[in-house]
C-alpha cells in the first residue's frame, strides 16, 4: 500500500515536472501570440513607425536585424568553419590544441554583456568603426564563433575517415580532400549548426546595446557604418522606455511575435535539414 502510494507520487512528480516544462513554453507562446497576433498585418512589417512610434510598423527593426544577422554570418561562419577544420582535420593532440579547445569552451560560457563591452572597446573605440551595424554585427560574430566551431567540428567528426582516404590515395592534397569531399558531405550538419547559432544571435540584445543599436532612425539601414534598429532592442525599448508604454503595448506584443516567428522559422529550417539528413542515411 505504502509502496503503491510512493510509486504514484514518483510518477506524478516526474510527469508533473515534464508537463510544467511544456507548460512554460505553452504559456509563453499563448500569451505572446494571443495578444500579439491582432497587431500583426502586412502594414506592420512593411512600414516604418510613425507618430513617435505609436503607430505604423517595425520595418526598420526587421531590416536592421537582417543586416545584423548578415554581417554576423559573413564574419563568424568562415572563421568558425576554418577553425573547426583546423581542429578536426589538421590538429594533432598537443598542448596548443587543448588550449584552443579550452578557449572555445570558455568563450561559449562568457556572458553576452561582456562581449558587448569587448565590442565597444575593440570595434567602436579601438578600430574606430563607431557605433554601427558593422560593430554590432562583428560583436555578435565573436559571440557566435564558439558555437559555430563546436557544431561544425561535430559535423566534420561524423564524416568517416574512409571518405578522406579515398581522395588522398588518389593523390589529392589534404586541402583538396577537405574542399571536394569533407565539406560537401558535412554541409547539412554545418548548416544546421550555423542556422541555430544565427537564430540565437538574432535574438540577442545585450551585445548590441553599446555597439550601435538605435532607438529610432528615419528609414531603413542602408550601409554598414550606419546605426540600426533591431527587433529585440525594439521590444525592449517599447516595453520599458517608450513614453506611452500602455499605448504601445500592442506594438510590443506584435514585435515579440515577429521576433519569435523569425527565430522559430530559422529553427524549423535547421530541424528540417537535420531530419532530412538523418532519413537519408
Amino acid at each position, binding site marked *: 500500500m505504502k509502496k503503491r502510494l510512493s510509486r504514484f507520487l514518483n510518477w506524478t512528480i516526474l510527469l508533473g515536472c515534464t508537463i510544467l516544462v511544456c507548460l512554460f513554453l505553452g504559456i509563453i507562446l499563448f500569451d505572446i501570440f494571443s495578444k500579439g497576433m491582432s497587431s500583426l498585418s502586412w502594414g506592420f512589417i512593411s512600414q516604418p513607425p510613425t507618430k513617435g512610434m505609436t503607430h505604423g510598423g517595425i520595418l526598420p527593426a526587421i531590416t536592421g536585424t537582417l543586416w545584423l544577422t548578415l554581417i554576423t554570418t559573413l564574419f563568424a561562419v568562415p572563421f568558425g568553419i576554418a577553425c573547426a577544420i583546423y581542429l578536426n582535420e589538421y590538429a594533432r593532440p598537443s598542448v596548443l590544441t587543448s588550449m584552443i579547445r579550452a578557449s572555445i569552451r570558455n568563450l561559449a560560457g562568457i556572458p553576452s554583456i561582456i562581449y558587448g563591452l569587448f565590442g565597444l572597446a575593440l570595434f567602436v573605440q579601438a578600430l574606430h568603426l563607431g557605433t554601427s551595424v558593422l560593430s554590432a554585427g562583428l560583436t555578435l560574430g565573436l559571440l557566435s564563433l564558439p558555437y559555430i566551431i563546436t557544431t561544425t567540428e561535430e559535423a566534420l567528426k561524423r564524416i568517416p575517415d574512409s571518405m578522406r*582516404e579515398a581522395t*588522398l590515395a588518389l*593523390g589529392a592534397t589534404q586541402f583538396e580532400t577537405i574542399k571536394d569531399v569533407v565539406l560537401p558531405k558535412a554541409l547539412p550538419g554545418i548548416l544546421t549548426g550555423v542556422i541555430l547559432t544565427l537564430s540565437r544571435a538574432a535574438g540577442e540584445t545585450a551585445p548590441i546595446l553599446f555597439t550601435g543599436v538605435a532607438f529610432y532612425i528615419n528609414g531603413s539601414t542602408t550601409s554598414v557604418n550606419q546605426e540600426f534598429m533591431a527587433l529585440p532592442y525594439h521590444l525592449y525599448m517599447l516595453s520599458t522606455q517608450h513614453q506611452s508604454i500602455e499605448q504601445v503595448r500592442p506594438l510590443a506584443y506584435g514585435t515579440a511575435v515577429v521576433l519569435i516567428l523569425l527565430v522559430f522559422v530559422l529553427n524549423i529550417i535547421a530541424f528540417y535539414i537535420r531530419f532530412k539528413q538523418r532519413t537519408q542515411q
Partner: protein
Amino acid sequence: MKNINIDFPKNQVTSLIGPSGCGKSTLLRCFNRMHDLSSDAKIEGSIKLDDLDIYDKKNSVTEIRKRIGMVFQKPNPLPKSIYENMSYALNIHQFPKNEIQKLIESALKESYLWEEVKDELKKPAVKLSGGQQQRLCIARTTVLRPEVILMDEPCSALDPISTRKIEELIVSLKKDYTIVIVTHNMQQAQRISDKVAFMYLGELVEFGNCQDVFQNPQNELTKNYVGGHFG
C-alpha cells in the same frame, strides 16, 4: 613494426597474410604514406619505388600517391556520380580535358564495369552494388595508370560472386601493374598471388613464391598459420 625487407616484383601479385593485428594494413599504408595523416609514427628505414625514396621529404606525397594507388577494405566511392568518381583524380592531376573521357572509358572497360554502367554514368556511385563499387574504386585507381596498386582486403566486404569478379580483375591487371594485396582468405591468396609474405606481430616471417609458402613453409609459425591452427 620491424625487420621488414621485401622486394615486390614488377607485374606480379604479392599477398600479405598474417593473423589479425599483425601489422599488414600498417605496412601497406606505409607504402603510400597514408600515415602522414594520422599519427606521430616514427619512421626508420626506407621504402623505395624504383629508385625513388618514398619517405624523402623532397618528394611530393601527392605524386607518390598518384604512382602508388590504393584500394580499401570497404568500398569507399566518393559521394558523387560514377563519372565524377572517375574524373576526380584526373582533374586534380590536370590531365588534358579532351583525354579524360577516353581514359575513363578504358579504365572502366579494364575493370569490366563499362558494360554495366555506361548508360548511367551520372548516377550516384553509392547506388551501385558493393561489388560494383569496389570495382569502381579499382578503376578509379587504375585510370591514373599507377605503377603499383595496394589493396587492403578488397573483397572482405563482398559476397562470393563479387569476390570472384574482383579476383579475376586482379589477375588480369597484373600484366600492367605491380599489385600488393592484404587478405585473410588463404584460398584467395593461393588463387591470385605469385608471391606471399607472412607477417606475425609486426615482423616479416616468411616471403617467397606462393607455391612454396603454402605447400612448403620454412617457418614453424607460417606452417601453423597456413594450416589453420591459429589466427
